[in-house]
């Protein structure tokens, strides 16, 4: 019976092909000389178990930071780093802002400071200029570093594509978790699973985070 079905489908496809109406799109496309640029890009970048790409970026206080001079809340070398690509302007980043502050306040004393990196090009998104970042950090009294990926060289190394997007890096600078802060970026009150916090607890216990990778909708990072 399966074969019969297949035959009908094939016959139908053939007949459809012969129908004039079907050919219209192809013809029109040829005429308009469509560029062949549209290729689905799978972002290359660091994955789970890979070394976290280092960076040297300017913080909102004007100082430059890399993994080597970031300390935890006690002034010690961190046990890990919560690297979050985020920005001023994305509504989902705004919806996550308080959560990011809370994460730092909870985990920086335990050895896991938040390192926020703003990857958007202010030429495209003026609300993400360095000055706007400084203003936001001051208004909200960010307790964490808010670094500017001005040359836009850091986020591609990580393979980050959206804001907010998290990478949990351990003390050996290995990426252990990548993805969303939790299972409800839009609504903090309806979070059921705290992916990132669970991942921190897993590596504290010497276990592998499960899941080690999650996805969430976010604003595409703006690059020219």
């Amino acid at each position, binding site marked *: 019976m399966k074969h019969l079905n297949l035959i009908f489908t094939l016959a139908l496809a053939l007949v459809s092909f*012969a129908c004039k109406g079907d050919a219209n799109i192809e013809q029109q496309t040829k005429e*308009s000389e*469509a560029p062949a640029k549209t290729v*689905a890009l799978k972002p290359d970048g660091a994955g789970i178990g890979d070394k976290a790409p280092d960076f040297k970026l300017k913080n909102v206080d004007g100082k430059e930071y890399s993994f080597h001079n970031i300390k935890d809340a006690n002034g010690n070398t961190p046990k890990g780093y919560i690297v979050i690509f985020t920005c001023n302007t994305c509504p989902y980043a705004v919806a996550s802002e308080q959560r990011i502050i809370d994460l730092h306040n909870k985990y920086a004393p335990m050895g896991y400071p938040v390192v926020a990196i703003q990857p958007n090009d202010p030429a495209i998104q003026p609300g993400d200029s360095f000055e706007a970042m400084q203003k936001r950090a001051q208004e909200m009294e960010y307790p964490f570093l808010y670094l500017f990926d001005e040359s836009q060289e850091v986020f591609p190394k990580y393979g980050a*594509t959206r804001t907010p997007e998290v990478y949990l890096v351990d003390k050996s600078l290995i990426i252990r978790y990548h993805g969303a802060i939790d299972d*409800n970026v839009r609504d903090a009150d309806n979070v059921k699973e705290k992916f990132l916090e669970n991942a921190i607890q897993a590596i504290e216990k010497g276990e592998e985070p499960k899941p080690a990778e999650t*996805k969430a909708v976010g*604003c*595409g990072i703006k690059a020219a």
Partner: protein
Amino acid sequence: MNSVFRSIPFLYGLVFCLLSCNASPASGQEQPVTETRETRWPEPAAYVKGIPVYEEFGQVEPFLHFDNDTTYIINFWATWCKPCVEELPYFEEFTRAYSGEKVRVILISLDFPRQFERKLAPFVEERNLQSVVIALADGRYNDWIDKVSPEWTGAIPATYIYKRDKSRFIGTSVASMAELEAAVKLL
């Protein structure tokens, strides 16, 4: 037995298509669409000012698996997403250029549910959007992003184009209608 029944719509489609092929192309006859069970549009949980609202991804999943001879262009967007709004005119241009043909643009809004009424609905009305607009309120993204395409990182805009079992995913902004046409053609 099951497959015999499943063949019936195909048979109808076959006959219908044969008939319409014989008819004059200028007759203005509607394009034959093979109606199958899967082509039925999922019932929304509610409407907000005419826009169908779906609560769970499972309810919109059938939109990604229609089994007929139409090509579907599914775009994930939101009114707050600047690049989404910037590329929207190309989808609209496409919808207008190919009206009456077997291609359909479906714009799935991921706006905040509380903004469906005061932001999304006025936006759709003011711009007089001709493409189909539906709203999806399911914010448990990690549960369903991979079901659209494993290639999708979650960044919007994102566009999934398919016809039956052939598909293509565009994870970046579209810069022209020609780009959409090319993607459809390459399917």
